[in-house]
């Protein structure tokens, strides 16, 4: 499956930013001046990042495995803990020791629930439930990158945990049949007008001709759709209901 950041609506992107902004500021507070805020960019989880994950792995930094810290090289940690002097450090055992401790310290800062690096699992094969998005956080002296599963935007954490634990597997319902439907109400009629209804009568609605229709699956509104036709059938062009 191809994932694309463009799949996310503007509102979903804003949700992503909002979702990560506060913790990012908290995580970065030790490394940045108070008046300097990190800037955040969203990027596609491209083949480049896929290969990085496969080769270097990532660290899961939340309980439901929806935010991952991407490690390109030990230099990433040098940048944050030794900053400019990183390039001057000799690559010896002492440096390695310092780097390992720096990694541990960094991971402790970004996830207070895990105090020991040994508790953190280096993952090279991530199973995304939603759309993976790369979050680049630029600080004044460098940048870190996180991979975020858009599934974390959903509030139903219990469901996320169930899925993660493989207790509930969405694949099993893939072939079940559901439906999409479009309907809209007309202005209410008095009983007399209803009884007198005749061929040729026109009943108005409050639905603007330029507004999209609500697209329902059962009794749930799942999207909005602009009505059109395709191959002599009525058809709808779907948009997220968030864009309504």
């Amino acid at each position, binding site marked *: 499956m191809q994932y694309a950041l463009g*799949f996310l*609506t503007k509102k979903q992107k804003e949700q992503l930013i909002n979702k990560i902004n506060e913790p990012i500021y908290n995580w970065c507070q030790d490394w940045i001046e108070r008046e300097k805020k990190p800037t955040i960019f969203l990027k596609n989880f491209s083949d480049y990042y896929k290969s990085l994950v496969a080769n270097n792995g990532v660290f899961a930094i939340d309980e439901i495995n929806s935010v991952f810290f991407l490690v390109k090289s030990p230099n990433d940690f040098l940048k944050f803990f030794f900053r400019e002097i990183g390039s001057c450090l000799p690559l010896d055992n002492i440096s390695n020791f310092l780097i390992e401790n720096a990694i541990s310290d960094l991971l402790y800062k970004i996830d207070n629930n895990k105090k020991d690096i040994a508790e953190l699992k280096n993952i090279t094969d991530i199973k995304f439930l939603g759309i993976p998005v790369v979050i680049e956080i630029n600080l004044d002296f460098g940048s870190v990158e996180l991979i975020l599963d858009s599934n974390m935007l959903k509030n139903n954490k219990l469901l996320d945990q169930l899925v993660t634990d493989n207790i509930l597997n*969405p694949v099993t*319902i*893939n*072939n*079940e*049949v*559901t*439906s*999409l*439907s*479009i*309907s*809209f*109400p*007309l202005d*209410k*009629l*008095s*009983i*007399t007008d*209803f*009884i007198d*209804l*005749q*061929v*040729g*009568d*026109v*009943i*108005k*609605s*409050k*639905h*603007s*001709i*330029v507004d999209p*229709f609500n697209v329902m*699956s059962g009794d749930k509104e*799942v*999207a909005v*759709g602009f*009505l*059109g*036709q*395709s*191959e*002599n*059938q*009525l*058809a*709808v*062009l*779907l*948009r*997220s209901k968030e864009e309504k």
Partner: protein
Amino acid sequence: MTTQINDINLPSLDGQNSESSKDLLENKLSIVDHVEVELVVEVGSVKLTVSDLFNLKQGSTVKLDQSVEEPLKLYLKDRLIAYGKLVAVDDVLGFQVTEIVNSL
């Protein structure tokens, strides 16, 4: 002054129904004319699997099971009332009746 409190014995109404009696209400419809009904236009629907539903994208086009030439259905709750077509009434949608299916 003394207040008396007594039990009430309601009379039996068994056997009082008479199907041959004259209707109680006249001009029935005028009595309920304040009641309003809401009619709903069914534009169309389509069946699809959960997998297909989950894979829908922004900008996906979904064909409905409604031919362009076929009239749309007008419902009062679950009851099919009429057929017709969409029309524009100024800047809002309207429904023009082309066939009445049922009458009260």
